[in-house]
């Protein structure tokens, strides 16, 4: 009994001593990269699960871009290496993988941080404190916070900009009432507040319906919207929801014109529902995914499409591939302009990027990063309207 008591006391004091020691220990410093080292890009994406296809396309965008950059001498003379890790769509798993990379002998120079805002937001604190540059397609405006996340540059413009195209369209057509439907998840809730804000002082009335992401029938909210009789229906949805919306509209025999946002377009509605159900449907499409606007494309667009197609089928909307593609092109350019490849130099160069004679990025006419803004700043005319046609190479035909 006595001995065991003693052992217990010993163990307790060991813990206490460790606790004290821990308070005083600091974190290890990081080692600077050699110029001959490869430029390490780590993509942490949900390679399995519902977003696996999308992630695959994003990876292809990174790989294609890396090949082109490497052929041109790499980023600041460093060869680009792309490593892919599976976050399983779990933010905690994403951070676990990220930590392992940061603490490995070969920490990343750039992280492609997740396909969703949840993954990105979870990884950003660690990325910021490690001083590692990152980017992603996650477009929640919380992420556009250079003060908190100085090294993150969002590659997808947020919907409070994208929706301007729809608002302009509604104004031009003289619509008085807009119907809006979205899922009640992170994306839908955010989009709901974006459209509400943008229509606030336009004199256009807004009626909205939301639905649960697990719903398998949307007759009820669509019927309710029909009863409100809007001049146009603006839809924000993805996956099966897109199909349920158009299916219900057809069943309700409702001939209201419909505009789908970029998420609707990205879900490729023509693959889910019959053409008859898509009559009068238009989609908000980035320039790069509208073949009808081929003339307005940036010079390297076809080169980008070809390069990515060589990696694999572009089964999703092309921006899923072109945005990560652009990310590496931007980094290569920034390295040239800064004549350095450390994170702070690249960050500074990206914030004041000078447009070169030959633009190598493809998705936006300009990205417009600045010290205060780390999300693409888009011009009107970048978002165009297309019919809900089949996607080929990620582009509406």
């Amino acid at each position, binding site marked *: 009994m006595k001995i065991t008591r003693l052992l217990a006391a010993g163990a307790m004091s060991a813990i206490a001593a460790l606790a004290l020691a821990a308070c005083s220990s600091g974190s290890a410093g990081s080692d600077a990269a050699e110029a001959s080292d490869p430029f390490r890009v780590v993509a942490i994406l949900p390679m*399995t*699960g*519902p*977003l*696996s*296809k999308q992630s695959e396309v994003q990876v292809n965008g990174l790989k294609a871009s890396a090949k082109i950059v490497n052929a041109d001498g790499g980023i600041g003379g460093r060869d680009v290496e792309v490593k892919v890790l599976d976050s399983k769509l779990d933010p905690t798993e994403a951070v676990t993988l990220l930590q392992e990379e940061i603490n490995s002998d070969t920490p990343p120079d750039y992280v492609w941080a997740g396909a969703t805002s949840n993954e990105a937001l979870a990884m950003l604190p660690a990325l910021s404190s490690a001083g590692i540059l990152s980017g992603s397609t996650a477009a929640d405006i919380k992420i556009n916070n250079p003060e908190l996340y100085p090294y993150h540059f969002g590659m997808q413009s947020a919907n409070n900009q994208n929706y301007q195209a729809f608002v302009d369209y509604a104004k031009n057509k003289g619509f008085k009432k807009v119907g809006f439907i979205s899922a*009640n998840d992170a994306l839908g809730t955010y989009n709901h507040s974006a459209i509400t804000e943008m229509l606030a002082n336009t004199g256009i009335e807004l009626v*909205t*319906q*939301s*639905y*649960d992401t*697990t*719903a*398998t*029938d949307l*007759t*009820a*909210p669509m*019927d*309710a919207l029909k009863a409100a009789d809007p001049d146009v229906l603006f839809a924000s949805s993805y*996956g*099966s929801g897109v*199909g349920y919306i158009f299916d*219900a509209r*057809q*069943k*309700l*025999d409702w001939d209201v014109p419909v505009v789908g946002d970029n998420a609707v377009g990205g*879900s*490729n509605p023509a*693959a*889910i*529902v*019959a053409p008859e159900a898509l009559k009068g449907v238009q989609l908000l499409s980035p320039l790069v995914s509208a073949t009808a606007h081929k003339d307005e494309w940036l010079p390297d667009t076809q080169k980008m499409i070809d390069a990515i197609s060589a990696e694999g089928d572009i089964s999703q909307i092309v921006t899923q591939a072109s945005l990560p593609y652009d990310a590496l092109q931007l980094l290569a350019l920034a390295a040239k302009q800064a004549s350095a490849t450390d994170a702070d130099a690249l960050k500074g160069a990206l914030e004041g990027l000078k447009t070169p004679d030959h633009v190598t990025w493809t998705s936006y006419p300009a990205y417009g990063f600045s010290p205060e803004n780390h999300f693409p700043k888009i011009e009107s005319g970048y978002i165009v309207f297309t019919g809900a046609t089949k996607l080929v190479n990620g582009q509406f035909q």
Partner: protein
Amino acid sequence: MMTTLWAGLTMGAIYAIVAIGYNITLTLTGVINFANAQFVMIGAFVAYWGLTQNDLPLPLVLLVAVILSALVGILTELIAIRPLRNRGGHTELVTTLGVSTVIAGLALVVFGPDPVPVNVVPTETFNVLGGQVRLNELLLILVAAVAALAVHWWMHRSKLGLAGLARAEDPEAASIRGINVKGLAILGLVLAGAFGGLIGPLVAQKTFAVATLGLVLALKGFVAMAVGGVGSILGSLVGGLIVGLVEALAARSIGNDFGEIAVVVVLLAVLLLRPTGVVGRGQVRLV
């Protein structure tokens, strides 16, 4: 409004179909099979493969769906349920969940994550009693009602069905009386599997074939079963229709996402006021 009513009944019929599957397995096998709704998903993807991709004749596709789901049912019983017999402790929740995950995972690998369309019957729309409703929706409601009545009748009239009910009431007594409990257990999974597989294609015309379908329906099926009464086949039908109707009508009349909230309220009310369900008499032993 009538259109919404029809839509509610249709969704209710789908929930009822899943709930009936749960109850068949619960009565004959004595467990709640978490993978039950995956039978519907199997049927859905078989239909996509047979009808959308390969243009095979419908009867052949249905036959394949039934056989495949029934086989999966047998495998489920042999691998995930039989080894746990008489051990208690709800472990079947974990193993059948494992089966469910495997099925969903395979669907994801084979067919990808995106929803795909299935057309079993023409996409015709009718105006019935002042509401718009599609042919496949009417069929779903009809099938659920007929199936509930048929299964109920079978359970209470046939020798096997009665043996199942006796087993559900007292497994030990049943096995002493010479009822083949093992055989019944297999039968419970085969029937639920074949049933789900058979109706899956029709469900898919409404919901599309998508790998996450099983999980979504699994939960709503539970709610339907809880509302209707655990162990009661007719209760499954009533519970499913109540859940579907409440969900649709609340969403339509109160608005926005009140559909789900209304379902929760109904479920809470039933659980607190009538824990045995609207129809059930709590005759099946649940522990």
